[in-house]
């Protein structure tokens, strides 16, 4: 309940992406088709909407398996918006740009 309330509040305040530092983590498994598509998609989204105000970390869980437990990962690729709070998660190859922006509470 409190989560959704907060979301609405942030949506109202967070009118622009200017002067915000975005931190993303993208979890992928190896170099599957889904992985490379997701990397390509998030990179272009970041460059288009956040210009220089973002940090994107790409993590291969095959190489760093401990993350699957700490982040409770089942489905991949998984994008987590770490900052600004609240944390948001979205799975898939991120081909639906509008859906990604919606979930991440980014209004264009």
């Amino acid at each position, binding site marked *: 309940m409190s989560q959704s309330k907060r979301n609405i509040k942030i949506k109202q305040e967070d009118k622009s992406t200017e002067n915000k530092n975005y931190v993303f983590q993208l979890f992928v498994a190896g170099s599957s088709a889904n992985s490379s*598509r997701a990397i390509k998609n998030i990179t272009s989204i970041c460059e288009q909407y956040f210009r220089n105000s973002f940090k994107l970390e790409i993590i291969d869980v095959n190489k760093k*398996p401990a993350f699957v437990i700490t982040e409770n*990962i089942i489905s991949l690729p*998984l994008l987590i918006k770490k900052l600004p709070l609240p944390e948001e*998660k*979205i*799975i*898939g190859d991120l081909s639906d740009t509008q859906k990604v922006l919606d979930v991440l509470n980014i209004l264009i």
Partner: protein
Amino acid sequence: MENKLISPSDVTPTNFLKSELLKSKTGIDGLDDITNGGIPKNRPTLVVGAPGTGKTVLSMQYIVNGIILYNEPGVYLTFEEKTDELQINLSSMGLDLNKHIEQNKLYLERLHVDRNEIQQSGKFSIDGLFVRLGLAIDKVKATRVVLDSLDTLFAGFDNGILRSELKRLFFWLKDRKVTAIITAEAGDVFLSRFGLEELVADCVLELNIRVINQIATRRLRIVKYRGSFHSTNEFPFIIDESGITIFPEVGETPQIIVSSERISSGIKAIDEMLENKGFYVGSSILITGSAGVGKTSVAASFANNASKSAMITLYCAFEESPSQIIRNMKTIGLDLDQQVKSGNLHFYFSIPSLFNIELHFIAIKKMIKKINASVVILDPVTKIMEEDINSDMRSMFVRFIDYLKMEQITVMIAATVTPNALDLVQGNEGVSSMADTCIMIESKQENGFHNKILYIVKSRGINNSKKEFEFDISNEGIKIAPIILKSKIRNGYLDNSSKISKELKSAVL
């Protein structure tokens, strides 16, 4: 020995296939029997059933038995219940999971899956699960894996991803060479909601629960077992404090060892009717007659004598309580109490309506194993048969009798036949046809006297007496006398017991 007989079981392909296909023992009572040694090793098995049918218990028992009985560590991933709740549920069944977790034999984790919390954009896979499973398997060096259940794991997946990911999951498990149990809820059209078991699982077990006459019965069926012969029947099972017990069907060619040893009936006259030796050891004896005719007295005499001769005897009472039987039998001179104290005589008592018939048999079977009984009394079995007279129950009873025969246990069954149905022996064929020896006690009213007649209807392999005998129970015990003497000693024909037994001998032999 040149003309050695080849029994059908020697030539069936079951024997060589059994050795080809590696199996992983479940350690679950009865399940390894009906699967000819367990579930397929290093392959996935699907367990399908509606909620509450016992999928979680079965799969957890598979893991725990693996650790305890076969020293095979296991991984249990659940998407369903919280693990602490699961542990409480299972510890009530005597499964102490914490101990195994501490010893690094068990990896137990609940994976939180809530599709509503995570949005989706484009294609994805469950590679994260594979990484987790891989970690868990490596951690405890597991050879057994359980995933409980597919429905929660794949909740919210669209059909395309579901089908491809389900296949990948099964192939991944095969690739890792673990023996896996995957649970799924039963579906409407297909067996499971997914309808993919035909493609991916090597073995499919279905659990269901049915309520007949307000008594719920759990059943298990082997739907599919790739590369192995299996029965298509449903097997009833119970879940109690020791987990699941399945009541197996005796194979089509049971290896029944036929004994030529004899066992006394405990009543001299009946022994005399049976070549002076009594019953065969491991045979089934049916005592039939209307209510109050004295079946329990005959059965108790047999039980008393067997336990006296140091044979462990189990008396299953379905009508009277053990204390009632002990008290009543004292009046005819049988001290059953003494036999109970000596540890040779045990009682099983249950009100039939509390349980379904097969549950009785499972409970009795467990008790037989526990006390290592060699003689079993079922008194009366009509009471059980009354509960459900459909053919399902009959076959259950036949299976039980077959089991006793295989174990070389002599069983005496008392069955009540109502006076109207007295001459309808074929009406009771389900019981009488499986009995090796059939003793009938009839009550006849004649000239103001209520006489009881005892005769042996049949006795397989014994040249039994074909005569009818007077049967009477008094404070002095059971008296049996040849019927021809009836007219000679009218009014008190059973008073002189020494005379009777003398005359009895001459009449029989």
